């Protein structure tokens, strides 16, 4: 037993017990944020402010330059955009591109699914996928267009061929690496339920690898969109498929530059809508709700 008052002992220190612990005179337990903070927390509002600022800079620069052939103002672009919208040329051009795009994208996803399923099922399938992606992923899809034109002729066939090429490898690569990253415990749980083969892939691997798969789908979508517009531009006169790239190309030939800008704006708007509405919604309903991404 230590002597009272000796440093380093507890003998002289009383033990303390509290009966009822309540807030007491603590005043703030919940306070509303100021209106500025509330608004600032909204991501869409912050992004809107950035867009408005960019449009303002564009408008000022366009007016200062005062040359519609080089750089039309924001207002001129917008009015060209709306007139294109009204006379139906822009919507039909966007639909023309969209149709081809969806076909190519869909086929690309199907091909990527088959390749990754083979890669999961066997060693040789894995080697095949790895070799193919390392060969073809770095190859720009547009570089295959001349060949595609010889094989499939002028028209949607060649467009879809280059689209499939641009989509497949990105999706296959991401999906495969997603599958490889699925936790060992989850795989054992799946096998414990007696799942194997396709049921195991569909019920365990795909949901577990969904974050990677979604990234692959997003990258594939962007690649497809870029490739399509570029391919339509290269096609030039001969196609007549009437996509957005063609719309841009045609208006450039007629030196209607505001319409060229309006065409580009449409490409951007479609990209934004797909990213922010479609992919964001899928993310919110899946990986965010499951807590695998925040």
């Amino acid at each position, binding site marked *: 037993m230590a002597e009272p008052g000796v440093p380093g002992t507890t003998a002289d220190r009383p033990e303390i017990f509290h009966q009822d612990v309540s807030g007491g005179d603590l005043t703030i337990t919940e306070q509303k944020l100021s209106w500025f903070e509330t608004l600032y927390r909204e991501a869409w509002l912050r992004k809107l402010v950035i867009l408005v600022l960019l449009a303002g800079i564009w408008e000022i620069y366009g007016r200062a330059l005062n040359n519609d052939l080089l750089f039309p103002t924001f207002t001129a672009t917008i009015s060209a955009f709306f007139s294109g919208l009204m006379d139906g040329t822009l919507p039909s051009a966007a639909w023309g591109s969209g149709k081809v795009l969806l076909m190519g994208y869909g086929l690309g996803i199907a091909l990527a699914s088959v390749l990754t399923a083979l890669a999961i099922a066997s060693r040789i399938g894995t080697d095949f996928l790895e070799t193919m992606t390392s060969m073809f992923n770095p190859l720009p899809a547009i570089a295959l267009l001349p060949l595609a034109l010889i094989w499939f002729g002028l028209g949607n066939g060649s467009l879809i061929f280059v689209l499939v090429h641009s989509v497949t490898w990105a999706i296959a690569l991401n999906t495969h690496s997603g599958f490889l990253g699925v936790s060992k*415990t989850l795989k054992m*749980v799946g096998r*414990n*339920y007696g799942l194997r083969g396709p049921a195991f892939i569909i019920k365990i691997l795909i949901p*577990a690898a969904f974050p990677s798969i979604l990234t692959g789908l997003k990258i594939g979508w962007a690649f497809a969109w870029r490739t399509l517009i570029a391919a339509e531009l290269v096609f030039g006169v001969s196609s007549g498929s009437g996509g957005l790239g063609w719309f841009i190309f045609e208006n450039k030939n007629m030196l209607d530059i505001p319409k060229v800008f309006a065409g580009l704006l449409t490409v951007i708007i479609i990209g934004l809508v797909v990213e922010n509405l479609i992919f964001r919604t899928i993310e919110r309903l*899946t990986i965010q709700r*499951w*807590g*695998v991404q925040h």
Partner: protein
Amino acid sequence: MQPNDPLLTVRGVTLQYKTPNHLITATYRVSFDVFQGDRFILLGPSGCGKSTLQKAVGGYITPTEGEMRLKGRKITQPGPDRMMVFQEFDQLLPWKTVRQNVAFALTASKKLSAREADEKAMDYVVKVGLEKFADSHPHMLSGGMKQRVAIARGMAMEPDILLMDEPFAALDALTRRRMQDELLRLWEETKFTVLFVTHSIAEAIKIGNRILLLSPHPGRVKAEMNSTTDPRKAAELERQIHEMLFAHEPDEVEHV
């Protein structure tokens, strides 16, 4: 199968696995019997192959020597008649709610239809006291709650034997004690058979009715003994097991 025959027989099982440079023998000629309603413990220090042994019973590893039979049938692959409860918290499917996680096990193994599975799942979710969280996703639960869901899932399947691989090892000490009590309460209710892996002597004595003691490198059976609920005998048993495990390392102190 006669009523007095063992549920699970393990006969002379040697387990080996390969690392990039070595062939490692995890267990060497291990034999034991587990009977219906047993709370059978595999106890030993790390490196004694107790988890590997359990994975082999689960059907994930094939023995290089010897054989294991469940109800007389040889174990060759994983299956829903031997439900595993893992130590890791990520054993629940993150894309399913608590209730769906339990129900999915029942439908995926084609045991029940979707509607029956849902009802049964809810029964077991209530049993482990998580009815308030039935529609939450696993990432919203604490570690102890996740383990409870995993136990509910394992029990709902009504397997021949429940395989638990240090299910409480990653929990804090207070939660672990509560979970041990709860497991014993659930056992009192349904008298399921469980094969439980642990490295804690105290946990083994508390949970088990029969303890298999394994020695390390490679795992061999050192003893197979009965547990006790009498606190004084339990302390004596704990001391005895401790001596058997650490006979050659007198200075080592075990923290439980």
